[in-house]
């Protein structure tokens, strides 16, 4: 499974911001092309295909003691958070159990980039379906089954290290 972001990464950020808020749009497009043309199964997180900027907040549907315990636990957890965006405090983090926190997480297409991003996904998925998919079963990398993994690391200001 190959993904650029998932619910764990986005939902565990204090304000649920997606990759689109953090990287150059062209870098994201290059990464999308890499993801969708690699043999691995792509996981597209809801809203990615339309360049959604809607935050995916951490939300829950707890009741009674569990809700109270969760609220206390969340409050304790956020008090220890560092690296909040400038001007933000832990008090501004949405209440996970509030219905509006869930409602605010419904992805909407981005007005500026949405159409272009959908076209990119459509083109890449069509290529994948027509040309790659029929031949992926039994594909190999470096002469080994694709079940092996590739690990990529990078250092700020240095050369990236790629291991297979």
């Amino acid at each position: 499974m190959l993904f650029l972001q998932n619910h764990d990464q986005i939902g565990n950020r204090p304000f649920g911001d997606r990759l689109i808020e953090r990287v150059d749009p062209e870098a994201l497009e290059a990464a999308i092309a890499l993801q969708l043309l690699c043999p691995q199964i792509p996981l597209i997180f809801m809203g990615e295909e339309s360049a959604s900027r809607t935050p995916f907040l951490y939300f829950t549907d707890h009741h009674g003691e569990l809700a109270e315990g969760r609220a206390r636990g969340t409050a304790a957890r956020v008090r220890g958070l560092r690296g909040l965006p400038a001007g933000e405090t832990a008090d501004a983090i949405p209440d996970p159990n509030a219905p509006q926190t869930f409602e605010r997480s419904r992805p909407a297409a981005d007005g500026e980039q949405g159409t272009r991003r959908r076209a990119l996904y459509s083109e890449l998925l069509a290529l994948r379906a027509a040309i790659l998919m029929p031949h992926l079963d039994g594909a190999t990398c470096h002469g080994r089954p694709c079940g092996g993994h590739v690990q990529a690391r990078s250092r700020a200001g240095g050369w990236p290290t790629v291991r297979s």
Partner: protein
Amino acid sequence: MRRARAGAVARWRLADGSVLTIACNLAREPCPIERPDGRLLFDIARRRGRARLHGRLERLATVAFLEPPE
């Protein structure tokens, strides 16, 4: 797999014997690349109206090639 300053090239042999090559450059400057064999499957620079692949891979770009079975 080969690596450059911020780019990487990976190849897979597909079940029919064809070879899929993907090169990705996530740096803000172009990086040198030897044109892979096979036909161009996808080049994101084309979508952006930029120069095609001529010995270098554009900044923030991905290209894919498919070499037919021998």
